[in-house]
């Protein structure tokens, strides 16, 4: 290719657009940004800035509770649906009885939640959320994140006490439980799914309105009051929130003695997560107490990186807990739900009972033939 202009020779040198540089050498691209004064990330944020999160609750009309949380380009929808788990099952000759012996009756133990699997979180990476995730069976990443959310919900920040899920009869004996199916769908992925998904779960649980349910001794079934104004919220414990970070080494080498400076980046986006292998998550509970720390993927000393992470995580906890959606319970919400319900008492149509209702004639009683 012949050139007639003298300036063309200079432009054909070693300069190329920023996006090309990002693809060719992602770690240098990130480091050059962090080496500027003041340190900036490619997205324009400073290393200690979290993305502003927006929350909306009760967006899904068929779920008992729901929330949509968006932080930057990471967007997550969480729906909570309650189903009844009766402790007696079967009809006529096939009736079985499960006797529940509660070990460790104190509220803190929550053996019931674990044994009966009363809280079932699940995470799904929706189609099109990211270039890397295609439709199909859950990837290792989805399974790992679902398991981390489950550990958070059942052990680290046990929001849901068993007491709020019990359905008792007139004497107060527990005959059934509400089981909460919590489904999180990631609709857009740009790093840090865990924090966003967790905030969505907390918001969705706080927005849950369950029908008032009692055990009817004559029908030997759980009956619910379909009137939306009689729906009740869950009595949850104090919430905690997570904050995730990545550690970037300002030297080209991933840690070791040569790494002069480690830079802790708050709320990493997709690009930063791929470049920096070392990830830290801090969970902060009620009163600013640390309730969980996870750190892996690098060789940075805990003494150097953790104090920064803990103080930033506490600030993030303040941001989340002062958000109006988390502060006020949605007690005043009388948005009608399940508009297909006819206005009288009827048994809650769980999937199990629906199957039997089809086969048993209405006039028959529950005596063995």
């Amino acid at each position, binding site marked *: 290719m012949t050139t007639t202009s003298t300036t063309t020779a200079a432009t054909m040198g070693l300069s190329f657009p920023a996006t090309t540089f990002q693809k060719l050498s992602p770690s240098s691209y990130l480091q050059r940004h962090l080496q500027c004064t003041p340190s900036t990330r490619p997205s324009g944020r400073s290393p200690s800035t979290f993305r502003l999160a927006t929350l909306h609750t009760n967006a899904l009309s068929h779920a008992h509770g729901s929330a949509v949380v968006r932080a930057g380009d990471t967007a997550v929808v969480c729906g909570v649906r309650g189903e009844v788990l009766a402790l007696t099952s079967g009809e006529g000759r096939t009736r079985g009885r499960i006797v529940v012996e509660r070990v460790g009756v104190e509220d803190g133990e929550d053996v019931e939640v674990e044994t009966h699997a009363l809280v079932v979180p699940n995470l799904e990476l929706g189609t099109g959320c990211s270039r890397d995730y295609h439709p199909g069976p859950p990837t290792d990443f989805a399974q790992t994140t679902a398991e981390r959310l489950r550990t958070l919900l059942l052990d680290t920040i046990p929001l849901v006490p068993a007491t709020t899920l019990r359905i008792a009869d007139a004497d107060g004996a527990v005959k059934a439980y509400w089981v909460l199916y919590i489904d999180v769908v990631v609709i857009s992925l740009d790093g840090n799914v865990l924090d966003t998904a967790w905030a969505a779960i907390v918001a969705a649980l706080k927005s849950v309105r369950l029908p008032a349910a009692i055990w009817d001794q004559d029908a030997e079934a759980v009956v619910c009051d379909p009137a939306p104004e009689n729906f009740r919220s869950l009595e949850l414990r104090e919430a905690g929130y997570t904050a995730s970070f990545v550690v970037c080494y300002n030297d080209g080498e991933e840690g070791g003695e040569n790494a002069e400076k480690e830079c802790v980046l708050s709320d990493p986006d997709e690009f930063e997560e791929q470049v920096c292998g070392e*990830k830290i998550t801090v969970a902060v509970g009620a009163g600013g107490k640390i*309730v*969980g*720390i996870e750190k892996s993927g690098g060789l940075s000393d805990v*003494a150097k990186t953790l104090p920064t992470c803990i103080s930033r995580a506490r600030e993030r906890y303040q941001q989340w807990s002062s958000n109006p959606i988390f502060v006020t319970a949605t007690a005043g919400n009388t948005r009608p739900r399940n508009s297909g319900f006819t206005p009288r008492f009827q048994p809650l149509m769980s999937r199990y009972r629906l199957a039997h209702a089809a086969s048993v004639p209405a006039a028959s009683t529950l005596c063995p033939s």
Partner: protein
Amino acid sequence: MAITASLSLLPRADGSATFKSGLTAVVASVSGPMEVKARDELPDKTFIEVIVRPAVGVGGTRERALESRLLAALSPLIILTHHPRTLLQINIQIVEAADHTDAIALLPVCINAATLALIDAGTPLKSVLVATTVLLDAEGQVVGEKVKGGSRHVLGFVRDGKCVFVESMGAFDEKAFGNAVQKGMSECALDAGDAMEVDGAETVGMVIRHAVEKKVGLDMRWRE
């Protein structure tokens, strides 16, 4: 709680080790560098795969989460650039567990077994990761048994005593965490001077050191 470890038990694997702590026992094997699937091939690094198999049944989300934690713990130790375009496969078989539902309790045992297996396989390593569990009470003091209101810390230490791996759960503050790191450091120390015997039993670091010394002794016996 008796801790035992041994190396080179599987003749067909490049490296293998078993690590047993109390009632929890795990066998780890390392194979590689070996042929990698085209979709996993990395042009400048080794691709590391961790597979965890439970004692009973087929692996589920709990095992996937454990694999992900182990991969994150072990990857930074391995010098990946020595064998580019290859695969390093780390297999962990849970043999027994004190509590099969408690994945966090399995984590330090798996890390230690994998470290020993990597050493046995001769994988190029930057350092060695030794992990232990430290239990604290509500005041942040080290205790021997799980206490209500306390916290549990799984901590991994490298050769020079730095804590680089953390999986902590419970209610605690920075001071309590500092206590846990101190205790963990002494338990995981690989040098005789820094370690101390706890109730007459060997610490994790000492067990690992002796297991490696025994293997090296066996390998070098032709010199005598």
